[in-house]
């Protein structure tokens, strides 16, 4: 079985290639035309870090506005998040500020990244949290979500920023440097990937897992608390339950 199980979520605007990233990682294939994700989709894969088998349980959320209220139920129980934008569509990069909001931004009051002033007092005192608002709907969502915002994501969530569609270099609208800068400012891991050519896709998932693993080694998590999205592998005796065949293939009666 596995030594650890990490829960991931994939978030980002609609059409940035979230489902394609998942499919490339779990099935190693690319599907150019993908149905719109409804609510959430699920995928799983085993990886190995430090010679330990680790199971990744990945929840791919819908980017569409109308599913936000549903998808935010998945934030808290996750250990890792892949925040995805499309390097060929500037607006998906601009929306990152809405997906990701940091408390310290409020204090620094950086022009680009600060939430609107009139909502500042509502931003909860969490080291790092996610909100699920896009620029257009900011007002409504801020007003709705303030009360329970603190519960949305755990403070130790590891987030990787992913600039997807790196194979479309000729259509690039967001430079690598911009992405890297944004990641650095927000304390995120950063990679540019291509779900089509599979470039950096493995790395995106595995680097995140490495980071989480490091945090575990450092003792940042209470492993028993499942709200962190991390689970210890089952002891071997429990695993046996179904494995022992109760009847032989022949002569089962």
């Amino acid at each position, binding site marked *: *079985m596995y030594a650890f199980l990490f829960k991931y979520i994939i978030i980002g605007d609609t059409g940035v290639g979230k489902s394609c990233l998942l499919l490339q990682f779990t099935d190693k294939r690319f599907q150019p035309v993908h149905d719109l994700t409804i609510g959430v989709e699920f995928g799983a894969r085993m990886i190995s870090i430090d010679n330990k088998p680790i199971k990744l349980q990945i*929840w791919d959320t819908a980017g569409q506005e109308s599913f936000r209220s549903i998808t935010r139920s998945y934030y808290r*129980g996750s250990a890792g998040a892949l925040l995805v934008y499309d390097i060929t569509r500037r607006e998906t990069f601009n929306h990152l500020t809405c997906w990701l909001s940091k408390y310290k931004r409020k204090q620094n009051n950086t022009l680009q990244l600060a939430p609107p002033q009139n909502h500042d007092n509502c931003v909860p005192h969490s080291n790092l949290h996610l909100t699920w608002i896009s620029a257009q709907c900011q007002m409504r969502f801020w007003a709705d979500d303030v*009360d329970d915002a603190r519960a949305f994501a755990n403070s130790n969530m590891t987030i990787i920023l992913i600039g997807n569609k790196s194979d479309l270099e000729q259509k690039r609208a967001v430079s690598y440097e911009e992405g890297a800068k944004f990641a650095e400012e927000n304390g995120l891991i950063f990679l540019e990937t291509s779900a089509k050519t599979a470039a950096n896709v493995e790395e995106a998932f595995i680097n995140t897992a490495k980071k989480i693993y490091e945090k575990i080694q450092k003792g940042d998590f209470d492993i028993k608390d499942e709200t962190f999205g991390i689970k210890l592998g089952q002891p071997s005796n429990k695993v046996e339950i*179904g494995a022992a065949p*109760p*009847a032989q293939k022949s002569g089962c*009666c």
Partner: protein
Amino acid sequence: MSQWLGGLLNRAAAAGGLDGRSRQQESEVSADTLLDRIANDQLSVDDKQHAISQLTSLGKHMYQAVGSRIPLITKLMQANSNNIELLRESIELLTSIILCNPVNDNIIQIHNTELFINDKSNFAVIFNVLNLTSDHYVRYSVCTFLKTLLTNRFESVQESILACPMSVTSIMGLLKDSREVIRNEALLVLTDLTKSNQEIQKIIAFDGGFEILQDIIRIEGQSEGGIVVNDCITILNNLLKGNVLNQNFFREMGCIPKLAPLLQVQNTDMWILSDNKFSIIMSTLDLILSLVERNNLSTPANQQQISHCSMMNLIIRLGLGKMSSQFIRSKALYTLGEIINMNPENIAEFSAVSIKSELNGQSQSALLKLTLVLLHSKDLIEKQSAAHVFKCYLTGNEEAQMALASTITPPAPGDDDLSIGQHLVRALFSWEMSTTQSSTPSPASPTANTASLLANMRIDINGFWYSSMVIIYTLRDSTHAKEQMLKAVVEIPKSTATAGSGEQQPLTLFQKLMAALLATKKQQDIDPLIKIALLKILSIWLDKSPRVVTEFFKNGSHLSFIVESILQPITSTAANSLQVHIQGLFTAVLAQLMLNLDENNIADRNNLSSIINHRIGLNSFKEKMDTLRKTDQFTHAEQGEEPFQTALDKISIQLFDFDYTIFFKDICDKVRLLGTNMNKPRPGTRPSSAQSVTSPNTASSPPSSSPAVPHISKEQQQHLENENALLKKKIEEMELQHQQQQQQQKLSTPGNQSPLPPVVSIPTPTAPAVVAQPEPVTVTPVQQQQPTTEINNQNQENTQLINELQMLIEEKDKENRILSEAMSKLEDLILEKDDKLEELSNQIWLLNQQLQQEKQQNEQLQLAQSSQNNNSMASNDSNVDIFELMRLRQENVDYDAKLKSFEKQVNDQHHLIQTLKADNQQLILSKEEIVKKSSSSPPVPTSPSNVNNLVLAKVESELAELKIKYSSLQKDQDEIMDWATKLEVENSTLKAQLGK
């Protein structure tokens, strides 16, 4: 709304009397004052808490007042979330105002529920309370409150909970509560919450729902556990049913193998099973059925895991083992079918399983055991489930079909260990044995034991029916299996019994089946199901299998039996209520014969088509199939596959299953197409283009087209004649042109006849001309010589000529098509005439009978009384008849006239064709000449003229065909004339008789 409700309430109270009204008002006042006290910020928490308990004590009188101010209560809870007592009393108060009374209409309670749900912040408070406190009572009452909310309005509650992000996590927290009471209450909340809302189901899965539930199942002792385990299985089923994501998740997280212990039974359980264990096994089977649902993307992977963790073996054990409950056996069998359905690996594994019998220690294959259950179980559900396993095992699995077919062999004498096929065949003909045995030794006293015999048969009929179903599954959609079954021998004649009777062939299954079917004719009281089953087998067997059709025609009596059965009038007695079905199936068999006949078998094809057209009539043929399609049994089966049913009263033998309805409808569709081609002579010999032109006309309105025919043909005639004249002109022109060309050529280049001129031309001056020429000419532009321009011109003209010729040929083609169309219409007319003649002859026959009767009467009368009066009376009677006869004769004359006119038309057409043909031949000749000339003079256009020759040959052959058809038509016409003369002769003899 609340005001209106208040009014309603007041009115209701007023009806109760003045006393009730005053009390009501009093309590309303006090409820409001109590609520005001809660709203008052000046008062202490203790006072507010007191107000709440006072409110609770008011009972139903405060429901409406509190309901209108729910936020007041929730805000109080929010502000005092550490005051356990207050929280508990507040939640209890809220519960009481929404708790429905099963007797009353509960308008207020439902309204209060809606009021609570509509304000999202209310939910936030409740879940906040859950997260903050671990107090036993508070958590318990929150559970009760949520349960009540869900009972009242589960869909809106589900939506509100979805909108409240952490709510599901909070509820999962309740499930993890170490106190069993709270955990069990939470299970009940989840049972409602997980119903039908996929998003909630997914979030619960995300929050580890599967693991928590399976842990509870494990802690409670798996299949030994009680109602709690059953609740968990129900929730698991809710979470998984139809939810592909959750099924993937369930499988990926290795949850499927953990279900296995729930299906484990001890040896003692075989005999007697506790109610809890019974329902746990049943709901686990339900859960597995959800995992292997049809048309679900995750089903194949789930099936694989189920068999890999040897859960399939557990289920086989439940289904074919010694479990005393037939419900569990049946459901396990049904589940087994779904587990192997469309899954080659699981099918292979299942067919390899063998079961050890504890009686004699011998092991038999699971399939054989399944056959025995199918044939000998007393329980119809169990038989049906066993048949379902066979269906899943055989459908789309040719290997299995062939394997089963190969087990049909003649049983060795004295050997009791029959193979699967032998068992099935024995059951298939069991009814026949019982009837023949009784009828052959004592044909004199058949009535004595028919009652007991019938009873015997009725007991056997289920086994017979399901064995026929398995035979159908074995045959369906597999040509190889059909042919393999054709070779299957079921009986080898005993050499001792038939000593000296010469070489007797072994009896094949097909022969036996046909013989059995023929034998049903003689048995009036036979169960209609037997006929239906045998006909279903036959119709499936014949499908897409010309060899089976050939086998069918080997015995001449087969076809006549089928036709007779179709023509048999349907009697409306209750015993024959299935007559419609039987005739529909007979018709389907006939249709299958027609549809699947070997293409080269023209004799049988003509025979069949004349039977369908003349003896049965195409319309009545289609009608019989349509009537079957309209029966209740058929329309019911059409709806789709039936889910597994345990209710005994609903179980009965279904005449048709979903697959058969599709099969049958397919035949109907083909017959409909067949009908459009059937009226035309010798389909297939005519070019397909002509068919496509003629078919819509003949199909749409054969009767109405008859009067229009003369018009059309006249028009056509004129049209054709005109065209012919034009053609002639053109040919003449062409000839002229050609002659001119030749002259020119002779003048200019006497030596260019050699096929390969020595000098290769320079391409530049010829280039424009080459472009203008059609393709075949451009291939050989090399042979240009001095003086090139003239030759070029000639060539051009030549090609133009050829083009024109081609066009002419095309026109001819069109004409031919029109002619053939007209012919098919004429044929329709002849068919109609045929029918009318038949009618006439029927009438004459009737008249004849009447006449004979009259004669007898007359004789009697003459014998009884010899007086003149009576004689005149009799003559009066006969006078009437003479009038009738006269009328008939007149009619006959009319018909005759019509016939003659038709004949004339036909002759006209014939003439037309002949003249056209002559013209055509002339044309062809002239064309050939031209071609010869052109090919002899310049070698250039040889290839196009070849093409033309081919086309011409085609046209000629078509014309020849048309002529043949025409002569056959004339023959038919002659026959009709013969008929008519015969009729006249008969008529005259009748008249003579009457005159006498």
